[in-house]
């Protein structure tokens, strides 16, 4: 249907979820989905690079020697749980319940912080063992792939912190709902990418 800029603010359609209620909101959500498609391409290239270079250890540590099972399993659990709590927050948003939404939102942020913290300590441990980015092509590709995901998560945390302030200030409106929904799309997407990292990098690396 045609889109009128006149409809910027006022919700025009109550038959759809709140985040889609303004034309502007539905445009932005579609735009973000397309951005995520582009981000899929970005990660695909990093995965391809990692897969090509993963055995080029140049006498340095291999994936099997390096990775620590309890560590990466805990990271995975933290991120998966955060994706679930993020879903709960959006669920509460759709029921128009601000307090529980904010609660789950905060839990999501905390779990994300836990994940990033663990990843930083994992990286620090590797670097301390001399397994840094300059050691081999395998480690270069590893740090860049996993680090890019970690950077995405970090940005997501700051983003959600900003939205937390806005939610507290304005409550659940068509605009804040759209913003929270888009952030949640991003968060679930990062979860999906992590599942691939878990499988392609950590599990495969540990097994082979």
């Amino acid at each position, binding site marked *: *249907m*045609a*889109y*009128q*800029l*006149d*409809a*910027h*603010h006022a919700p025009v359609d109550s038959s759809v979820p709140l985040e889609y209620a303004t*034309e502007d909101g*539905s*445009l*932005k959500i*579609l*735009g973000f989905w*397309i*951005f995520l*498609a*582009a*981000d899929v*391409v*970005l990660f695909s*290239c*990093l995965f391809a*690079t990692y897969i*090509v*270079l993963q055995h*080029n*250890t*140049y006498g340095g540590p291999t994936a099997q020697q390096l990775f620590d099972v309890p560590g990466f399993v805990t990271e995975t659990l933290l991120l998966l749980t955060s994706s679930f709590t993020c879903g709960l927050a959006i669920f509460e948003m759709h029921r128009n319940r601000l307090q529980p939404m904010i609660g789950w939102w905060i839990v999501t942020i905390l779990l994300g912080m836990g994940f990033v913290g663990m990843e930083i300590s994992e990286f620090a441990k590797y670097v301390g063992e001399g397994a840094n*980015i*300059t*050691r*081999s*092509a*395998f480690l*270069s*590709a590893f*740090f*860049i792939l996993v680090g890019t995901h970690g950077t995405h998560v970090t940005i997501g945390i*700051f*983003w959600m912190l*900003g*939205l937390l*302030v*806005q939610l507290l200030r*304005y409550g659940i409106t068509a*605009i804040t709902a759209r*913003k929270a929904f888009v952030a949640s799309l991003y968060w679930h997407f990062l979860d999906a990418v992590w599942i691939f990292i878990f499988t392609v990098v950590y599990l495969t690396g540990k097994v082979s």
Partner: protein
Amino acid sequence: MLPHYFNHLFVTGTDIYIADVLIILTSLGIVGVLTYFKKWKWLWREWLTTVDHKKIGIMYIIAATAMFFRGGMDGLMMRTQLAVPNNHFLGAEHYDQVFTTHGTIMILFMAMPYLIGLINVAMPLQIGARDVAFPYLNAISFWTFFFGAMLFNLSFVIGGSPDAGWTSYAPLAGPTFDPGPGENYYLFGLNLAGIGTLASGINFLVTIIKMRAPGMKLMDMPMFTWSTLITSILIIFAFPVLTVALSLLTFDRLFGSHIFSMTHGGMPMMWVNLFWIWGHPEVYIVILPAFGILSEVISTFSGKKLFGYSAMVGSMVAIAFLSFTVWVHHFFTMGAGPAVNSFFGVSTMLIAIPTGVKVFNWIFTMYRGKIRFTTAMLWALAFIPTFVVGGMTGVMLAVAPADYQYHNSYFLIAHFHYTLIGGTVFGVFAGLYYWWPKMFGFKLNERLGRWNFWTFIISFNVTFLPMFLLGLMGMTRRMYTYPPGLGWSHLNMIETVGAFGQAIGMMFLAVNIVWSIKYGERDVTGDAWDGRALEWSTTSPAPEYNFAHVPVVYGRDAFWDMKYGKNREKYQVKAKPYRPIHMPNNSGRPFLMSLAFFISFWGFVFKWYLVGGLGLAAVFVFMYLRSFEYDTDHYISVEEIEHTEAAAGRL
């Protein structure tokens, strides 16, 4: 810690000093003029902070024109050096920089912004929209492109230009063989501009999917809008690959990683693959919109519907799909094996089929038409034979074993100049002459336009036709000089003459613009060429809100239909009263944020991580400020609309 190349921060050399002086004088001149005429406020309010797609389009076109002249100067320098054997006009190092910046600027800072500029100008008008989907993001797209281009150009005077070719193959472009900051400029400049391009792709796609005028089905859209839609999809899937390739090489150069290095298990081939997985779709990103322009111009000046509309759409979809399956043809000679070479050879040949369909459909659009030879039409017509030469030699290059003989030779250079100039540049000029009255309200002069056209097109062929032969004689690209006695000298001299002829042709365009600003024929009707699509139904230039009433559409060629077609009566509904129009606010933030990016990336170029980090922090602050901004738009009142429409004689 001062990096070791702090010492040669400022590039030395006579021509650089001349450039320095010229840059300083030009900058002072601009500052002086703006101050004298008290235009600073005007510049800021009307242009630097605008989110209006038409103004952003014009800024893209201005920047692209400037880059065309810069890249053209590079071309002239190369041709001067190669005019005679064993010439000493440029040394090897200097020549290497010049061909690198020539290629990079022409593809990424000339062809792309010209087309994105024309898309910005025309596409929203063609679909009857009041702006693009994300006007604020559109401003960010422009300013990141602009500052990316500025960063790249800054290398000329501060630090030294990149010199590993626009393809920047590792390991030549890696830290071992190319330690200076030049290559970093390439990486950061392109990455910054790439952010803007990706955002443009998303923006245009959402605009076309969601914001078409009521009644306009996908298969009713003007062909230029279709080409934009498909180009946007290509951008969205191709540009992240470039981002990754550039970033990986950046890591190799700045942080000592070994993705593309010769040692520690790195793989230089990986760069070649990533670069061309982006690079081949990229050539279609710069040709498909030109195809779209051609469809509009030929149909308009033949006074006819486009021949084979659905085949035109289908062939573009096919080309876009195939463009992701042919990248290896850029390196048949890298040992991929006969099976791979056969596959990519045949897939490349297949692209000729949908392209051929388009060429025949353009030709048959003129069948039983009334052809008006305006300058826009001349450019569009010249496109056909020129691009066909480029396309046919492209098929010859797709023959893998024959390519072993053409690869990297001047045969290849001739081929891609026939496609990129004969295709993209001719298309852009057709579009410029065609949409000029829509952008500025006056036409470019036709007589000067013909001088511009004929000088350029004859010189173009004088320059590039002999290159096919030179390639078969064994001359390879990127040679800064060659010995006498190989039979290359005469042809090289002819090419150089042609190159200067093209420069003269471009001077006619410059003269034409200046002359037409003063004396050009004003377009008071809004319909300068007896046009077919909706952009011609509003005034020239279009008002801020594009259309006082959003048009309702009943089929293809809506404006033609409105004027002469079978739905004429349906279009003549009683004028409704105006209603206030909701428009986005201007903002200085896209400009400032991109400036912060520029400063940050400039810091990274020199490994000044403090500058880089602070700049990035500023970028994030600007993003946060945007997130917290809730007063983002305003209404244009009915009185103001009435006033504007009355002034245009439309009330």
